[in-house]
């Protein structure tokens, strides 16, 4: 992967700078690593996937024949003899947002070449993601034990089960893929692959700390999508 040389480059700020970059040769996003640009565009495409899911959900919810179940009852937890609405989901959201914070710190320490600190923070992010997926599995099994299925739902409209399992499942897959990569990257960081610029196993491209930022972009995106899913499923 080629490294951008931005030392000798004068970058003008604001709209003027943007127009200059667009009209110039070689690169449109000055000094932006190829992989980083790729991740941004991939995320744009992924945004459309999740938008299609959520818009379909709105349409589906709007046109069911049976009433939609009450979110605060369905997702409530019975703790110490008290019904607490949205308890689990609040914790899940908190964990995931926190993991975004540790990810951002990992990127910072990565660029400072603080290998140890960076590695531990990536590991912390991975564990946060793992906790999230675990709690989601718990929630799924709770709903399943109560009789909610993709094709039926004792609390009301059957589309509730369909959309819930599909969309949280799709998001959970994203988180799981992220967790796998976080573990791999944590290993690579601790093993010093980014300091030594060791070549990748598959791509045979030289390693660089920018890869952590690229994974970080993905991770923040997954968090952001969760915020929307949270709002549409649990608060609506």
């Amino acid at each position: 992967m080629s490294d951008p040389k931005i030392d000798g480059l004068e970058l003008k700020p604001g709209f003027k700078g943007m127009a200059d970059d667009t009209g110039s040769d070689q690169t449109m996003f000055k000094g932006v690593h190829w992989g980083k640009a790729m991740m941004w565009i991939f995320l744009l495409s992924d945004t459309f996937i999740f938008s299609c899911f959520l818009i379909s959900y709105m349409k589906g919810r709007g046109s069911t024949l049976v009433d939609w179940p009450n979110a605060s009852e369905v997702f409530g937890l019975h703790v110490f003899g008290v019904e607490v609405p949205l308890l689990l989901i609040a914790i899940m959201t908190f964990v995931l947002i926190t993991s975004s914070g540790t990810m951002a710190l990992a990127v910072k320490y990565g660029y400072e070449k603080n290998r140890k600190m960076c590695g531990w923070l990536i590991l912390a992010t991975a564990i946060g993601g793992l906790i999230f997926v675990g709690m989601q599995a718990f929630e799924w099994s709770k709903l399943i034990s109560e009789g909610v299925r993709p094709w039926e739902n004792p609390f009301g409209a059957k589309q509730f089960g369909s959309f819930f399992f599909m969309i949280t499942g799709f998001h959970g897959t994203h988180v799981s893929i992220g967790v796998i990569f976080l573990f791999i990257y944590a290993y690579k960081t601790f093993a010093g692959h980014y300091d030594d610029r060791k070549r990748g196993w598959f791509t045979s491209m030289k390693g660089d700390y920018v890869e952590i930022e690229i994974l970080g972009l993905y991770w923040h995106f997954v968090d952001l999508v969760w915020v929307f899913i949270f709002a549409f499923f649990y608060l609506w």
Partner: protein
Amino acid sequence: MSDEYENKTGYQAQSSETISSGSGGGSRTASDIDYVRPAEVTDQDLYHGHSFITKWVFCQDAKVIGVQYFLLATFTGVIGLILSWLMRLQLGFPGAAGFMTAEHYYQFVTMHGMIMVVYFLTALFLGGFGNYLIPLMVGARDMVFPYLNMVSFWSFFVAVGVLLASFFVPGGPTGAGWTLYPPQTILEGTPGSGWGILLMCISLILFVAGFTMGGLNYLITVLQARTRGMTLMRMPLTVWGIFTATVLAMLAFPALLVGALMMTLDNVLGTSFFMPTIIQAGEILEYSGGSPILFQHLFWFFGHPEVYIVALPAFGIVSDLISVHSRKNIFGYRMMVWAIVGIGGLSFFVWAHHMYVSGMNPWFGFFFATTTLIIAIPTAMKVYNWIITLWRGNIRLNVVMLWCLGFIVTFVNGGITGIFLGNVSVDVPLSDTYFVVAHFHMVMGIAPLMVIMGAVYHWFPLVAGRFLNETLGKWHFWLTFLGAYSIYFPMHYLGFIGVPRRYFEMYDSPYMTSAVGMNEFISMAAFIVGAAQFILIFNIIKTLKTGKPAGSNPWKANSLEWLTPSVPPEHGNWGDKLPVVHRWPYDFNVPGAKEDFITQTTPPSDVVGTEVEKT
């Protein structure tokens, strides 16, 4: 392309005065005029394959991947062609093929449509031409993520495998029509309602995943890996077309992915995303409360941009071919670029014109008819510009040019019927008739195909180092062009008299008496046109070994792909040094120049005193 442009970008900062004061001044030195900003990006680090497998099978060279895409897409295209023959056999001569049942007919219609649109045209333009031409035309050594690019092709390979596997599963491939409308897609009675549609959805999901990997490559290569001096407004229109089409694909395929996934769940798990309450054979099915229209919206939010995913690369490529072979700069380059971008943007706001008869709110029809007709403006601009480019050009009437002219005619024809169908009140009676079939085959079947053929004859000397045979090429062109008109022109009439599309047989319907002879004629023409395509395959096989050697830059073109140190270009494309670009690729017949073309790498000091465009 004005002088202010250079000043604005601050490029050629040291020499902007000398450049803008016009050509012919005496006192400045060559190095001043020829200044190009230093490299911003270090040279690309490439993986060089050593074994047969890493060089030709799991290859990371975009050129090989492009050829792989081309061959596999052509292979699936031939299957689509054979399916169309079988359909025409049934339509022209009902009962002539003994094995043909109504179920088979629907399956063939469906698979023909899906194969041609997605697995043939999309894969060929973006995967084939995109991979081969983008790195060469922008002066990159390869795609920016060669490994991902390789995975992209093999995902496509698996997608094609899954698609073709559906011919061999119980029930056969899906016969729901290429639009796969629920609820009938997954109801018993529709052929392939179990396995067929499942494999179709899986195949589409794989295709989208593979395409996303390729598409990221195309976009980042264009945005971030251009060579020194290659500004966006110096890129050949081919690159602009493929680039914009890729943007569309990245934003449109998600809707298809979501639709295919939800369809799969409806089919396999029994969810009711798209399935309303249905009574089948006196029995109420498990489904209830779903929305079939939702699928139509998802499908056409993909489906309409898909038309332009196929059309925009064709627009771009044909612009380059016309310019090179009429030895004139493309008329209104910037207008052409903005028209491509504008069509691409508009294409996301027109999808429901495919749904005028779906029962959606009539105000939607009003809105979508308006946006649809607005698209005619940038499209017409492009057609005018092609014609003005030809006007008083030094036209070489070779096979490539014939295909280009064929494209313009066919495209205008299909475009005009599009204006009929874009209006709600005209569309409603014509909907689901052969008029629609004629329209979309003209505009997005034959027209882009003509460009593909022209492009094959144009770039074959680059890929293989030899010319294709011109005589065979002319046979191929005339049979295809006249034959395609013989097929699709009468179909407009069939539509006007009300012959519905997707009918297996018309039996003794009264209006069929006037359509019988015409259907026979159309079928005969279809057999001939289909057979004519094998001339190209024969031509390619024949000339690979025995064709006339082309040498470098045989068409005297300006763009970078012809300026590689070796022909065909090797892995890494440019030898030791990347090319440096000084101009756009359309400097043909510049007054005062020694030859009738000035390549993109020719420095300004070489053309002092000529009236060269400032780009």
